[in-house]
């Protein structure tokens, strides 16, 4: 039987790269989708608003695991074969989009109403108001919860191992299957996740403090 040594640890470390890559892709695509849904959610057009709230509500009310299964097993049964990495990226992007849409909607709404009025009274269009007045302020407000959500995303990438994609989690499981030294292995895996997530958590909290401080002045 194999034991848990340096080659195995190295394999686990390298796979953490895939976790980061997956996080980056899901965050990038999810941001674009999420931004669109946030704006739709605040649109003056009722059906757009409803569609966006429906989407957000549904995605936030089902397990990420189900989104993943639907896009992997479900679509393959319909004859659409997604490679594991694509299925993982697609389902995580969908997950990200719903949560970011909600966070960003909240941020946009917390920009004071008077800012809209002031901008409108200066003859700006809606797009101009968003671009020059609302979004610059909303982005600042949204920074702490967005970074906080990034932590959730990193952790949730761990479930994509189920479709066979070798990320940090899957690497740990593979080594475990070969060595049966689960305690050491998952301690290492957990420590790597922690090393990624903890600084992000601190950053989020720091940003929040900075924001609160600047708001009270």
């Amino acid at each position: 039987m194999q034991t848990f040594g340096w080659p195995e640890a190295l394999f686990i470390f390298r796979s953490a790269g895939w976790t980061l890559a997956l996080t980056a892709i899901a965050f990038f695509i999810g941001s674009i989708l999420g931004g669109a849904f946030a704006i739709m959610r605040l649109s003056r057009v009722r059906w757009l608003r409803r569609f966006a709230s429906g989407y957000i509500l549904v995605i936030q009310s089902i397990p990420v695991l189900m989104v993943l299964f639907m896009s992997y097993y479900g679509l393959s049964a319909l004859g659409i074969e997604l490679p594991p990495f694509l299925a993982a990226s697609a389902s995580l992007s969908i997950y990200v989009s719903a949560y970011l849409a909600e966070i960003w909607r909240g941020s946009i709404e917390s920009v004071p109403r008077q800012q809209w009025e002031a901008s409108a009274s200066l003859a700006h269009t809606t797009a101009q108001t968003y671009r020059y007045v609302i979004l610059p302020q909303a982005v600042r407000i949204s920074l702490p919860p967005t970074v906080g959500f990034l932590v959730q995303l990193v952790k949730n990438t761990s479930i994509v191992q189920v479709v066979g994609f070798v990320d940090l989690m899957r690497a740990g499981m593979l080594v475990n299957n070969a060595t049966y030294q689960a305690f050491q292995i998952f301690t290492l895996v957990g420590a790597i996740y922690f090393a990624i997530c903890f600084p992000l958590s601190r950053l989020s909290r720091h940003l929040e403090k900075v924001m609160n401080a600047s708001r009270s002045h």
Partner: protein
Amino acid sequence: MLFQDVLSKWPMILHGVWLTIALSFVAITLGLVLATAMTALRSLAGSWAGYVVDAYVELMRNTPFLVQLFMIFFGLPQLGIRLNGLEASILAMTLNLAAYATEIIRAGVDSIHRSQIEAGLALAMSKWQVLKHVVLQPAFARVWPALSSQFVLMMLASSICSFVSVQELSGTAAIIEQDTFRSFETYIVVTVIYLVLALSLKLFLNWLGHKLFPQVSGLARLTEAHGEAA
């Protein structure tokens, strides 16, 4: 699409639903008790207890639930503690939820003004009585919406327990899929059930919040917080 094959397995599905609800209920209850105890420990005991609680909360919040579950299910036997899938799931969910709930309740406790505590002390209450009646009750009322979101997220995260062969709803889905080869239909059905469960739980928690904290429903809405996924 053929849903009949999937729906004909309804007794299995029902059992999965039952297990998901039971798991969530037990973990939420135990987790909340643990979180309250940790909050009390942090507020009343010396600073070392506070550090221990803080470290625990950070550790749990910055590692994936799946790692925690595997640590308990695969790792603990190495230390001579052997739990079956269900026990490991309940333990992992409880420990995970407790960390998040502690963090949320702390925010509520921090929002209670010092003068409230003084008023309680001036009325001859003991430290414990102040904590219970003056601090924790309104703190819970204030953070109930955030706690509710966290409970819903925990229920959804219970799907991950299928990885240690617990036959809750998503574990059931995997079996039905293998039996029927109807992957898409299976996952649609199960996803819709999760949706219904999550929305019902949300409504129930809302109702419970109004029942438990009639006065602060308006106040609580102001401090609406985003829950975080496990």
